[in-house]
């Protein structure tokens, strides 16, 4: 059932995201080209196009964020909830399908942002021979840090990268689940449900950050650097601490969301 839910979740969102990404790609190429021609020092069109590109980039990110909330709220707690909540599926399956699609679109938006920047750069470089030369330089720069990193910290770069990606993933899950939980808790109110959801969101965020401050293992950057002789260990502890916190919080948010959707739904 989860696979079927995912199919319709992606069907519902693919068209709008596709249009967004195409728009971003087109604008990045146009911005790049308009910076190249005319190659004068005060190229107003180029500057304007670059601004338009930056705005579009911000718009895509905002759209991704709003779609995550909208798909949950409108599809499960709005009018379409009559359809979704009468399907013979469990509530955790509904939540999981929304979560997976949201993670996938967030990742896609980040990749598209990077890709569009690459497109802009390629379109903007004066000649292609120069481009290939630059690319070689870029590659050198990109591949330098791992070696440097390992030399200075004595810690594997790839393991470090894996930790960063893992943290990004669990942080994404717990952030999205927090949005869902806020919607579900706000839904328990009879009136001003949207306002209640927003207040709940900020309240939980505040409580969690206060909790993180008093939890053991909290260290400032200064304290970490004070341990300079074993910086990789200090950084690692911080990483795993954050990953653990996100896993615990994400699990709680998910459980609360699925429970409220199953036991405390009130579509009026």
């Amino acid at each position, binding site marked *: *059932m989860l696979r*079927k839910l995912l*199919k*319709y979740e992606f*069907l*519902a969102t693919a*068209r709008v995201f596709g249009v967004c990404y195409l728009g971003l790609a087109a604008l990045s190429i146009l911005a790049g080209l308009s910076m190249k021609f005319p190659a004068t020092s005060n190229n107003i069109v180029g500057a304007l196009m670059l601004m338009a590109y930056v705005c579009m980039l911000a718009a895509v990110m905002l759209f991704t964020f709003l779609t995550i909330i909208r798909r949950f709220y409108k*599809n499960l707690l709005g*009018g*379409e*909830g*009559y*359809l979704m*909540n*009468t*399907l*013979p*599926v*469990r509530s955790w399956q509904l939540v999981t399908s929304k979560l997976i699609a949201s993670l996938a679109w967030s990742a896609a938006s980040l990749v598209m942002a990077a890709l569009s920047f690459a497109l802009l750069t390629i379109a903007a470089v004066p000649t292609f021979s120069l481009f290939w030369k630059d690319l070689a330089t870029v590659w050198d720069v990109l591949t330098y840090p791992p070696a440097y990193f390992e030399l200075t910290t004595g810690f594997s770069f790839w393991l470090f990268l894996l930790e960063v990606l893992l943290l990004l993933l669990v942080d994404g899950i717990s952030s999205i689940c927090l949005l869902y939980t806020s919607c579900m808790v706000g839904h328990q109110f*009879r009136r001003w449900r949207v306002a209640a959801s927003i207040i709940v969101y900020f309240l939980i965020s505040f409580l969690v950050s206060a909790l993180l401050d008093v939890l053991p293992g909290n260290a400032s950057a200064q304290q970490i650097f004070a341990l300079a002789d074993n910086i990789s260990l200090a950084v690692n502890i911080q990483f795993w601490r954050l990953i653990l916190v996100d896993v615990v919080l994400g699990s709680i948010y998910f459980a609360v969301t699925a429970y409220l959707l*199953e*036991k*405390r*739904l*009130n*579509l*009026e």
Partner: protein
Amino acid sequence: MTEELLCCRGLGKQFGHKVALAGVDLSLGRGRIIGLLGPNGSGKTTLIKLANGLLTPTRGEILINGEVPGPATKAVVSYLPDASYLPSWMRVRDLVNMFDDFYADFSADRAVEMLSTLEISGAERLKHLSKGTKEKVQLVLAMSRQAQLYLLDEPIGGVDPAARDYILRTILQNYSAEATVLISTHLISDIEPVLDEAIFIQNGHILLHRPVDDIRETEGKSVDEYFREVFKC
């Protein structure tokens, strides 16, 4: 399979201070067509939503085949809401596929056949359909299932009289002998000929639940006339 299909025990629902259902006790058997009849705001929609798990009871319980609303009951209940609820970006044929994917008792062939009788194209997007046509699509989807219980909330409220006849015929033709159809409406005269039982509901209370033949014999009038007498303003 128990004889009792749907059962409410002391079922209550409150919205803030407003009482929508006040301790309803009700038992519905199999193989009947039942009218859930009452004026606006009497609790018809609330009762149907509770049976679908879209609302949570404030008190008491509602059971279908002895189970609280959940995936197992949703697999055997076909629901027609009183408002348009289908995602507007979807095409009619997407919806047929979706119902086919999720409901084991759904017949896509039957849905396609009914849609073509009603001259509704599968390629049409929901947002381009008129309100009446949308209601017909919803009804086709609901009646293309071989469910045990059909919960039809105001199925004929928004369509013209010609379509009304077609819809009632559709309901009669499509449900199996073991299935029960619960139709909520205030347009009693239109559905009276097909009813086996009538439930009168007012201010969240069940006033009566009797076979329509029994009403006609003991009261000496049609259900419609009797309804007008009971709910006289």
